[in-house]
C-alpha cells in the first residue's frame, strides 16, 4: 500500500475505532430517592440508540447481620428503622413474624387494633404518593413546566383549600397511629401475641368520625383521579402505551376467597396471562422466592425460584414478578369491600380486563386501595371488639422459627427470624417490598429510555418520562429509604469517550 493511502487508511481506522470507543453514556445522577443517592446509567451505541440502561441502588446497611444477638421482641422497633416512611409496615410484618415465632394467637381485640392501625397507615401513605409524589405527573401534567411538576404545582392546580385538606387529613390519620403506637414514625405498639395499648371507649366517637372522614377523602381522591386522568384521552393513551407496559408475574396477599388483603392471608402469584401460578402460606416463601445478585447494584433482584433466573425479560419466558397496587389487584380475584370492588370493576373494564400490565395503572390501583383501606377502617371502628380490654396473649411456647408477611404499601413484605430457645436472633432474612419490583423497575427504566432516546438526543421532557417509569411503583429501594414530596432532581449529561460534555440538561 502506498504511504499516503496507508496514512489515510490508518486515520480512518483510528477514527472509527475512536468513535466506537466514544460510545456515549448518559448519567442520571442523582435521582436521590434512594437513601439520598441513586443513579441511572444509560449507554448509547454509535448511532445514539440505547444499548443498555441501569437503574442502580447504591446502599447497603446490613440490617440482617446486625440484628443477630438481639432479642426477638425488639425486632418490631429495630426493623422499623429500615424505613421511616413505611415504619408501620416493617413493624407489622415483624409482629406477624413474632406471633409465628412464639406460636401465639393475639386476642380478637388486638388483631382489630393492629388492622385499624395498618389500614390507617395504608390510607395516609398512599395519599402521600398520590398528592405529593406521583400525582404531579398527572394532576399538573407530564409535560408541564418542570418548576410546576411538584406538590406546589398540585396545590396551585387543585386549590389551596384542597391542599390544606390533604395535609390535615394526613395529620389526623397519623395522629391515630400515634395514639396506639406512641410515635407515628417508628411506632412501639407491637408485641408477640398482641398490642401494648387499647382503645379507650371515650375516644371511640372521634375515631369513628376520622374513619368516616377518611372514606370521604378516599372517594374525593378517586373523583380527582377520574376528573384529571380518565377524562384526558392523552393520559389514557400514555398509561396504555407500550413504553410503560411489561408482561410479568404478579404477587399479592389474598384472603380465603382470593380477595385482596393487606394484613394477612396467603401469598398468591399469577402468571403473565393471569392464571394462578402459586398460592402458599408465607412459611413456604423460600420455595417460591429467590434473589439474584448483579455487580452493578447493591439491591437484590427477586424472581420466582421454580422458574429460575431468566434475566431482565418479560413475557411467557419471564421469571420476574411485580408487587404493589397494580400487582395486588392482578393477584386477587376482587376487593374485600363494596365500594372498592365497584371501583375495581370499573378499572378492569376501562383497561381491558386482567391482568393489567400497564405500569402507570399503579396510580389508579393505588387510589382504589385507598378506598379499600378507608372502608376497612370503618368496618373496624364499628366492630364492638375494637374497644375490648383483652389485648395481650402472653406467649408460652419455646421460640425457634418465625416468618411473617404483610402487604406494605409498596408490596409484599416478608420477615423471617430464627432464634435460640431464649428468643435471641440467630438469623434474620428480609424480603423487602420494593425488591419485588427491582427487576421490573430496571426493565421499565431501560424500556422507557429505549422508547424515548433516539439519535443521542434527549429533551427535558424525557427526564420526567424516564422517572415516571419507576415513580409509579412508589419505590422504597431496599427499603433503605424512599422519596418524599415533590420531584427528583435530575441531571442528564451526555459525554463522548474523552469525557467532553456534548449536551447537559438539568432541572
Amino acid at each position: 500500500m502506498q504511504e499516503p493511502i496507508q496514512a489515510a487508511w490508518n486515520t480512518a481506522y483510528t477514527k472509527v475505532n475512536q468513535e466506537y470507543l466514544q460510545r456515549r453514556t448518559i448519567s442520571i445522577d442523582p435521582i436521590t430517592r434512594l437513601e439520598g443517592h441513586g443513579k441511572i446509567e444509560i449507554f448509547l451505541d454509535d448511532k445514539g440508540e440505547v444499548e443498555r440502561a441501569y437503574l442502580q441502588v447504591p446502599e447497603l446497611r446490613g440490617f440482617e447481620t446486625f440484628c443477630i444477638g438481639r432479642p426477638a421482641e425488639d425486632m418490631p422497633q429495630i426493623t422499623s428503622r429500615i424505613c421511616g416512611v413505611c415504619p408501620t409496615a416493617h413493624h407489622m410484618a415483624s409482629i406477624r413474624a413474632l406471633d409465628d415465632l412464639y406460636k401465639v394467637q393475639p386476642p380478637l381485640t388486638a388483631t382489630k387494633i393492629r388492622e385499624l392501625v395498618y389500614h390507617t397507615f395504608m390510607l395516609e401513605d398512599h395519599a402521600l404518593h398520590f398528592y405529593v409524589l406521583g400525582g404531579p405527573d398527572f394532576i399538573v401534567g407530564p409535560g408541564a413546566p418542570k418548576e410546576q411538576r411538584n406538590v406546589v404545582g398540585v396545590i396551585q392546580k387543585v386549590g389551596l383549600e384542597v391542599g390544606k385538606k390533604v395535609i390535615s387529613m394526613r395529620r389526623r390519620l397519623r395522629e391515630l397511629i400515634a395514639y396506639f403506637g406512641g410515635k407515628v414514625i417508628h411506632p412501639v405498639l407491637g408485641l408477640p401475641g398482641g398490642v401494648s395499648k387499647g382503645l379507650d371507649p371515650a375516644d371511640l366517637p372521634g375515631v369513628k368520625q376520622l374513619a368516616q372522614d377518611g372514606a370521604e377523602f378516599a372517594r374525593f381522591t378517586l373523583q380527582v383521579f377520574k376528573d384529571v386522568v380518565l377524562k384526558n384521552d392523552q393520559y389514557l393513551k400514555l398509561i396504555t402505551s407500550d413504553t410503560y407496559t411489561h408482561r410479568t408475574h404478579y404477587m399479592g396477599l389474598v384472603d380465603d376467597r382470593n380477595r385482596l388483603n393487606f394484613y394477612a392471608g396467603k401469598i398468591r402469584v399469577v402468571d403473565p396471562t393471569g392464571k394462578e401460578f402459586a398460592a402458599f402460606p408465607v412459611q413456604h416463601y423460600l420455595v417460591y422466592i429467590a434473589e439474584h445478585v448483579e455487580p452493578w447494584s447493591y439491591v437484590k433482584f427477586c424472581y420466582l425460584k421454580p422458574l429460575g433466573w431468566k434475566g431482565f425479560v418479560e413475557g411467557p419466558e419471564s421469571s420476574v414478578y411485580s408487587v404493589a397496587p397494580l400487582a395486588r389487584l392482578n393477584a386477587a380475584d376482587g376487593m374485600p369491600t363494596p365500594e372498592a370492588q365497584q371501583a375495581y370493576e370499573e378499572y378492569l373494564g376501562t383497561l381491558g380486563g386482567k391482568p393489567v400490565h400497564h405500569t402507570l395503572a399503579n396510580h389508579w390501583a393505588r387510589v382504589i386501595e385507598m378506598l379499600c383501606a378507608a372502608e376497612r377502617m370503618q368496618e373496624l371502628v364499628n366492630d364492638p371488639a375494637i374497644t375490648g380490654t383483652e389485648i395481650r396473649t402472653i406467649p408460652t411456647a419455646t421460640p425457634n422459627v418465625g416468618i411473617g408477611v404483610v402487604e406494605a404499601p409498596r408490596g409484599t413484605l416478608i420477615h423471617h427470624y430464627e432464634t435460640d430457645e431464649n428468643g435471641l436472633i440467630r438469623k434474620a432474612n428480609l424480603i423487602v417490598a420494593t425488591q419485588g419490583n427491582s427487576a421490573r423497575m430496571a426493565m421499565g427504566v431501560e424500556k422507557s429510555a429505549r422508547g424515548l432516546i433516539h439519535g443521542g438526543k434527549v429533551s427535558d421532557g424525557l427526564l420526567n418520562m424516564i422517572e415516571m417509569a419507576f415513580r409509579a411503583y412508589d419505590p422504597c429501594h431496599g427499603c433503605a429509604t424512599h422519596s418524599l414530596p415533590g420531584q427528583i432532581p435530575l441531571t442528564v449529561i451526555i459525554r463522548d469517550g474523552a469525557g467532553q460534555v456534548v449536551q447537559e440538561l438539568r432541572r
Partner: protein
Amino acid sequence: MAGKPKVAFYWCASCGGCEESVVDLAEAILDVVAAVDIIFWPVAMDFKRSDVEALPDGSILVSMINGAIRSSEQEEMARLLRRKSRLLLAYGACAQLGGIPGLANQFDREQLVRFAYDDCPSVQNPDKVRPRPQAQDDGRTVTLPVLHQVVRTLDQVVPVDYYLPGCPPTPRLLNQAVAALLSGTLPPRGSVLAPDIALCDECPRKDSKPADLRLAEFKRPHWAVIDPEKCFLAQGLLCMGPGTRGGCEALCIRGNMPCSGCFGPTSRVRDQGAKILSSICSNLAATEKPEIDRILTTIPDPLGTFYRYSLAASLLRKRVAA
C-alpha cells in the same frame, strides 16, 4: 427571595423518618416555607449537588443533615455542606449518635456483605457475584459508591454546631429550633436543642418511680403484663429513661412501652450506654457479686439495649477483631 435565609436539608445513612418528621410539621410547614428559602432538599426540591457547589462558601445559614456516614458519597456531601454553611445541624439520632445503623459496627463490613450476597437463605448466587465500586458488565463500566468499614456520626467527619435529637426529632423541637435560628436566640455552639433533663423528669409515670428501685430481676416485655400507669423500672422492665435526655414528650411511654433511648444522653454524660448501665447497677437489690451477676444475666442483650442508638458515638465505637 434574596433576603430570606437559606436552608438546606440532606440525608445520609438513614431511613427517611427524619424527612417524614419535617413533613409532619403538617400545617406549620407552610409557615416555614414562607420564612426561609430552601435551596437544597433532594427529596422535595429540584436542586442538585452542582447547585450547592456553585454557591459561595458560607452562604447557607444552616444545613440540617440526617443519617450516619457509611459511604464515600455521604462523606463528600457532608464536607461540601459544611463548607457552604454557616451552621451545621446534626438532625436526628443517626447523625448525632450513629443511630440504629451504627449497630453495624458490632460486625465488620465483610460480614454484612457476605450475608447479603452469599449466606442469605433466599439468595441464589452460585458465581459469588458481588456489587463492585467499578463493575464490568458486557464491556461497560458501571460505578457504585464505596461502603466504609465503619459507621460514623456526623461530628466524627465534620464539625457540627448543633444537634436535634431523636429517632426522629419531634415536630415541636424542629419548630423551636427553626424559631431560635430565625430570631438569633440560639444557645452556645455544640448544644443539643432539647431540654437538658433526663426523660424521667418529664415522664407522666414519674410519681410511681420509687426513690430506691431495688431491682431484683428484669422482665422481657412480651412475657410481662404491663401496667399502663406505673413506672416501667418499678415493674422490672428495662427503661432507658434515667440515662436519656427528655424533650420527646415521652411518646413511647404514652404508647405503653419503655424508653429505648433515642434522644441520647444529657450534656453531662459522655457515654449514654455506660451512664444507663451505672444507673441500673446502682439500683440493684443486691450487694454480693453472684447475686448481682444473676440479676444482670436477665438482661439478654446489654449492647443492643444500652447502646441501641449510640454505639458509633460511644467510647466503644466498634468491635475490633480479636
